[in-house]
């Protein structure tokens, strides 16, 4: 499964948010999207998911233009993990996760025993099988995020799109979600995610795209793209990129100027 965009322009009607976007995502690749608020990350995601039309250019899924695919076709290829929101009704985690099967079921069908099994597997894979019968709105933010990832997994789509999966999570839950993302990526799941923490790119991305004012200013491995100069360009602040002596892992930390 590949996802590719060619000279894509995104936005809402007359309002052009971004243009000239060329992306390619291969099997099992994890692509991290970095950029300041308002740079067009969410608009790009909504366009990639087919929720809003591209203003110009093309999006191809396995070489087929997205514009010609039905909602079901797209949902069987790309799954979406939104930022967790409250639901108006007290669905259980299991009921919520089962909704991921919608694109795999006939119009008149309800989830079968097999679908229940798939949902339970997804919950176990994310280590939250014990939450299956809890009320979705009553579990913690981190648990909700994991449940939404489980729902996306039951969709059995080769590509996951995650819009700031660690936003508004405490430190422990951020790490837990990142760990799961890396595990998924290693098991062959392609992931595109947006984040506000450049360090997450080092933790679980194969490639990084930097967005600035609606344009893609860099695309490459984390080592190539997450540089002090690039981050200065998009965020306007100074950072230090260093390598940890013991593990060789690269980290990114802000360096405050008014010290």
């Amino acid at each position: 499964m590949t996802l590719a965009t060619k000279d894509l322009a995104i936005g809402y009607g007359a309002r052009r948010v971004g243009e000239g976007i060329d992306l390619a995502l291969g099997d099992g690749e994890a692509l991290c999207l970095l950029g300041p608020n308002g740079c067009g990350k969410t608009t790009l995601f909504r366009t990639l998911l087919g929720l809003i039309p591209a203003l110009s250019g093309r999006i191809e899924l396995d070489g087929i233009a997205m514009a010609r695919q039905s909602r079901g076709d797209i949902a069987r290829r790309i799954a979406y993990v939104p930022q967790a929101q409250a639901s108006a009704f007290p669905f259980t985690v299991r009921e919520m996760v089962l909704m991921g099967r919608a694109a795999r079921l006939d119009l008149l069908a309800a989830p079968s025993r097999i679908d229940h099994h798939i949902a339970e597997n997804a919950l176990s894979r994310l280590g939250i099988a014990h939450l299956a019968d809890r009320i979705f709105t009553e579990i913690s933010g981190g648990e909700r995020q994991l449940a939404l990832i489980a729902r996306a997994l039951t969709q059995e789509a080769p590509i996951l799109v995650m819009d700031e999966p660690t936003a508004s999570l405490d430190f422990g839950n951020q790490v837990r979600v990142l760990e799961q993302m890396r595990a998924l990526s290693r098991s062959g799941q392609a992931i595109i995610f947006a984040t506000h923490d450049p360090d997450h790119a080092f933790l679980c991305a194969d490639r990084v795209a930097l967005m600035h004012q609606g344009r893609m200013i860099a695309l490459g491995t984390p080592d190539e793209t997450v540089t002090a100069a690039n981050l200065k360009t998009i965020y306007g602040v100074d950072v230090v990129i260093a390598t940890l002596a013991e593990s060789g892992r690269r980290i990114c930390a802000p360096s405050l100027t008014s010290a």
Partner: protein
Amino acid sequence: MKGLFLAALGALVVVIAALCVGKYLISPADVFDVIWARITGGPLTADPTADTVVFNIRLPRILAALLVGAALAAAGATFQGMFRNPLVSPDILGVSAGASLGAILGIFTSQTVWVIQAMTFVGGLFTVALVMAIGAAVRRHDAILVLVLVGIAVETLLGSAISLIKILADPYNQLPAITYWLLGSLTAINRADLVSILIPIAIGVAPLYLLRWRLNLLTLSEDEARALGVDTRKLRLLFIVCATLITSAAVSVSGIIGWVGLLIPHMARFLVGPDFSRLLPASLLLGGGYLVLVDTLARTIAGIEVPLGILTAVIGAPFFLWLLATRERGWQ
């Protein structure tokens, strides 16, 4: 499953009780006897009057109450899910206001009962179609919010037309008929009415029932539901058309009966949870049973018939407040 079984059992008990009580009391044994005699065609051991009362008077009215209650509750559950709000009632898009205007115009112009029913039905459907058309034309905001706001505006407009007709109506003949109709009643139900609402209600409930699991997906945000592979616009349109069809059909014979569509889905959610696979059947059963109960009270508690709308409000509003005060889940 246990919750659904309880709902079905409750509805059955209420129906049997409703067949027994009234001005002419019939024992449960005699009720079974006359029904058994009709089914098998065997000899009647009970009083022949019991047979007449059960089959010609009580049964049509009870069946109508079952149908109307089930229809209003199913429409309420559907609209609450679709509008992601547990406080929505089936007339959110103006179906009751449109139906009322249709009925009142019919009464005002001295039409026959049959024509008044048809005008009621068409009034409800037409109003919702108008709200949907305006909503589709206004594309600037969140689709659901637009629909709700357009519904409020149209409803207000129709409300003023209703008030105008009430002022102009003959205060001795037409005005009492209008007032009575606006309070809802099943007194005048006959077998022909039953057939005339059974068909549109069946046509409207069938797609809701078949697609009920998918209704869960419409309770999510628009982007989420679409990313899960749901064509939300088509599905929502279908659900609105179905729910409007059944509400209009119900209202056309019963008049305005408030609170059922708002309250029953809550009780159903309490009993079986929010998953529409179970919530819709539970709402149908509870709604039917509840209206049979209220209608039985309406014809037995006083010397005159108490309008249904008054009873459903008197029972509904305090119950609603009690729910509000005691339950946290489902209100978040």
